[in-house]
């Protein structure tokens, strides 16, 4: 019985994650996260070009990277309704509608 339920959950999860809308949403999410790391590194470099690094600068940047993630995660949760509305309207004709979020 348990095995049957697990199989069902796996099947549903697989369907959800392979559906074009959720897959596209995860594409946006992954891109946000990659780019946020890139921006954090660029921000730190801009600072170091102008100023000498203060004590514990690297640790503060790691903490800052964490805050970037949190900020983007909540932003993505907030834009999720907009994204899915877009997908269900324009997305029916164009599967790559998630690229609008670039």
């Amino acid at each position, binding site marked *: 019985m348990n095995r049957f339920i697990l199989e069902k959950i796996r099947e549903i999860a697989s369907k959800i994650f392979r559906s074009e809308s959720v897959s596209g949403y995860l594409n946006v999410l992954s891109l946000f996260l990659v780019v946020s790391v890139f921006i954090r590194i660029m*921000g730190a470099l*801009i600072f170091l070009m102008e100023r000498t690094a203060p*004590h*514990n600068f690297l640790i*503060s940047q790691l903490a800052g990277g964490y805050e970037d993630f949190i900020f983007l995660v909540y932003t993505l949760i907030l834009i999720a309704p907009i994204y899915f509305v877009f997908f269900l309207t324009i997305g029916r004709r164009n599967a790559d509608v998630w690229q609008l979020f670039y």
Partner: protein
Amino acid sequence: MTFYFIAEILLNWYFSLSLTPFTYHTINGVSAEQANQVAAIYGFEKTYLFFLIPVGLIIFMGLWNLMKIVDRTLLKKIALIIFCGALISSVFVQVKAAHFDNELNYQSARNKVLSYMESYLIYRTEKNQFENLNEEVELKKYYALNEINKMENYDYPFFSETQVRNPLGPFFPKRDSAPNIVFVICESLGKQFSGDEARLGSFTPFLDSLADHSLYWSNCMANAERTFGALPNILGGLPEGETGFMNLRYDMPNHFSLPQLLKENNGYQTAFFVAP
């Protein structure tokens, strides 16, 4: 994503130059002309704005192509794990000033776009709270706090017979002749550059030495958003209000100031010197 990219980089650039975050208070009440002047001080010309369009397009195309290069399946799995991890941990862990050994590290760690948005939300919340205050209740609190017996004349609610104590009086003994009075106001001289606790090291050893032989306020509150706003505050006791007294420009009301009162009633001569 492109807008976030550009905004975060520009705000990081501003922070690197000024060592203060760009918040809503930075631009609130500042005219376009003043903003241009300040931007020019930091070496930013208006023409640079035209470059934002091609830069934005380059970033947009870069992001477009990035996903074609990377392994999407692996990236999505990593992203999903980070997403869930960050979501759960955000309930328990927050980036707060108390977690950092100094203000500079805290501000450099902050996400600059988030920091700006937070400052705007705080401003709106405080403004709403202020606008919804019950005037009569607040005035009664003010009278009780300052021990003022105010029974009538609400047209001038802050006017009252002074009952303020005079803790500074003993430091200024009466003399036969009026003393010379000199105000020295320094542009952008903050606590980070001056005094024993200067975050970036003190650049004012002489002023620091005077602190040992003077009345010195180590926890003085900023009374204006920007330096020029300090002048009416210090010399006229004129509050910052919503956008600052100087920004009232042509609507500026008649007002008293210390130099005016000293000159008209006490025989002083006044002079204003400014140096770049």
